């Protein structure tokens, strides 16, 4: 068991190192940060000097090594774009993304399960068919389009909800939250729907198909034969068995909600790490890009590691 865990942890570290190497190899294709850092009046001499100072003339694997050496000491460098420590910027921006991911995850899970059950039980009903058809839109429309559509309807047309930003936030010292102010809560609605819509339809379809599968099983038939109420059969017996795969998928999807908040954050000017990353790419802010990519890969690797370890805990066959 210990051996297994150790092996998985080592594999995870290896994945992280490779992700970092690939990232650093790619940065040269994003552009030259020196061009964006120096003003229009820069001379050829200035360009050379700054390139030299930033170590951009070195091969990428040496730049990567220097980044790693500093990163393990807790120093992620200074953002080229903002001139502040990267760790501080990310810590400042992470709450916005995590709160958005939390709310949209809740929305996706809650509505997804309810609608999934509904469409499974009323398989041939008009409403269920309508929901299934509409869910196709949720799966196939790109996120930015949904975002702009929502802004158009609820902000411009109906003047109900704000079109951008996070509203007023409360600073708790180490965390800023929009949950404690009315404008912060209202500002969460549109971005959360935009970000969660895809996951919501995914969960809904998953719950529906699992539910249909389970409803065909013998023990459901027996339950019905025993004269249990429809409610008890559907919710106590069927739903419980449906949720096992749903929880697995949801856990993995949570990672992608955080990682793919980029587009939603751009459309709504949501001040999270996704927007930070987009700006970093445009500016070729290498320290921020590197830190963000490492953060996201740590998160994904961490979630996968946790899932793997959970399997071991659940399935005795893996322990030998």
């Amino acid at each position, binding site marked *: 068991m210990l051996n297994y865990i150790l092996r998985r942890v080592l594999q995870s570290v290896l994945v992280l190192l490779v992700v970092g190497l690939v990232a650093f190899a790619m940065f040269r*294709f*994003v*552009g*030259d*940060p*020196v*061009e*964006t*850092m*120096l*003003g*229009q*009046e*820069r*001379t*050829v*001499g*200035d*360009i050379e*000097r*700054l390139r030299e*100072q*930033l170590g951009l003339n070195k091969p990428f694997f040496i730049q990567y090594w220097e980044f790693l050496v500093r990163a393990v000491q807790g*120093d992620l*460098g*200074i953002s*080229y*774009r*903002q*001139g*502040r*420590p990267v760790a501080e*910027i990310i810590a*400042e921006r992470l709450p916005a993304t995590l709160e958005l991911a939390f709310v949209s995850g809740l929305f996706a899970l809650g509505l997804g399960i309810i609608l999934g059950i509904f469409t499974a039980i009323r398989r041939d009903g008009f409403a269920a068919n309508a929901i299934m058809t509409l869910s196709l839109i949720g799966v196939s429309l790109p996120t*930015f*389009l949904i975002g*702009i*559509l929502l*802004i*158009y309807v609820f*902000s*411009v*047309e109906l*003047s109900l909800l*704000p*079109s*951008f*930003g*996070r509203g007023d936030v409360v600073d708790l010292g180490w965390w800023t939250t929009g949950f404690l102010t009315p404008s912060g809560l209202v500002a969460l609605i549109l971005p959360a729907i935009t970000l969660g819509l895809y996951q919501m339809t995914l969960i809904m379809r998953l719950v529906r198909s699992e539910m249909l599968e389970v409803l065909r099983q013998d023990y459901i038939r027996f339950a019905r034969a025993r004269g249990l109420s429809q409610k008890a059969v559907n919710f106590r017996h069927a739903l419980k068995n449906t949720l096992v795969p749903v929880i697995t998928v949801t856990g993995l999807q949570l990672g992608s909600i955080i990682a793919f908040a980029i587009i939603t954050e*751009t*459309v*709504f*000017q949501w*001040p999270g790490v996704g*927007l*930070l990353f987009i*700006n970093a790419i*445009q*500016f*070729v802010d290498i320290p921020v890009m590197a830190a963000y990519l490492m953060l996201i890969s740590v998160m994904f690797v961490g979630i996968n590691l946790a899932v793997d370890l959970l399997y071991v805990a659940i399935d005795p066959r893996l322990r030998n």
Partner: protein
Amino acid sequence: MTMRLATFGAALLATTALTVSAASAETLRWARASEALTLDPHSQNEGPTTTLMHQIYEPLIVRNMEGGLEPGLATSWEPSSSDPNVWVFQIREGVTFHEGQAFDAEDVVFSLNRALSEASDFKELLTGVTEVRAAGDFTVEVVTDGPNPLLPNNLTNIMMLDAGWAAENNTEEVQDYAAGEDTYAARNANGTGPFVLQSRTADVETVMTQNPDYWGIGEFPMDITEIIFTPIQNPATRVAALLTGEVDFIQDVPVQDLERVDGADGIGLATAPQNRVIFFGMNVGDEDLTLDNVEGANPFADVRVRRAMDIAINREAIQQVVMRGQSAPAGVISPPPVNGWTPELDEYPAYDVEAARALMEEAGYGDGFSVQLDCPNDRYINDEAICQAVVGMLAQIGIDVNLSALPRAQHFPLISNFETDFYMLGWGVPTYDAEYIFNFLYHTQTENRGSWNGTRYSNPEMDEMIASLTSNTDLDARNGTIAALFEMAEEEVIYLPVHNQVLNWGISDAWSTVVDADDQVKFKYFELN
């Protein structure tokens, strides 16, 4: 993708109608696409950063929104009567910084020296300055290595800091990114300007309030008591925020949304030509091009080919179709407010495909050739679309152009590294003098000059004339040299001018302002209607 997104947003918005909530009388909520990068006024010489700095800090001499020079923290300036290499500035008395420190000549000496330091992004504007010294509490002398008639023009974005404040907070040096430093001045601001910084969260919100002790109260409208600045990157969202009344002023209305904004109740459009000209550069200097299909020769080296391309570009079609009327076709790579610009120079050649084909034939390229055009796709208004239009126009004279459109961070290194043979560039002239154009775009590339000359063009005679502009104090003779330079440039067709951009500001009807050609908003001039 961004472009398509914006177009879609525009289409959506064009079908809507809404009522705009009345803007609060004194607070102005301001949005634009880009955020200021730092609060250190000498660290980043870049439009949005400079704009924010102008509200909090002040330079010695200010360019007002009409483009004229106005006294800022200097009340008057003139060359020294005894030494032609010295400029004498009389400093405004009785001015205090936001934190209460008095402003005097020592602060000017400190600030100019700080702007001259190696990590400063403004040092090139002060090239030739050898010494800055105080000659009394309110007199400053700036010594240059030769007569420098245009020094005042170069000071309009160089802000004044308090020497004592900088020393106290250990922020005398400009932030050095390479050293991984984090400085006090990059996060805090203490200027003499019309607005005091209250709070700032980068990429989210910056709040400023009116400086009650500002020296210019009574002199300028100063109708705004509070400014809330929010960057909104997505063009559709930015326009939506203006339409819903969540912001009062946006600095960059996308061309496809102009009608929508103009037609909305309670919002107006303020439009003016921008100090930025868009043009194409060609590699005229190399023996052979790398990205073409002509072996052993460089078609761009032949002036007839360049002339043919010049008349094959239909500038009016670009204006009408690509820019929806929002541009002024140009015949010279100088925006109109620049000293040296004349209407004659700006006359662009008539579009004439037949004559262009004849010129190509004459140059021996009757069958045409192929070449790659490098174009930015996120820097200028409709940049990629302009390039696409030009690809079609050049195809008519047999030039098969392969378009490569890249984000700015990848496009501009191609120019500075000599990796492109044919490229698009835009140029604004903050000094309002043509020397700035020749210095950067025509002079042979050397350590200190010609850094944006991606054409490899090198003409020793021209270089000498350009160098003479720096120290020629006889303004008539100097203007003569500029005219001669423009004539040479025109003759050689080193660049193909396309147009001057037009600025479009969207603003609530509660406020009125003129549009600054440099896109440098100065809120002290805003008036409440």
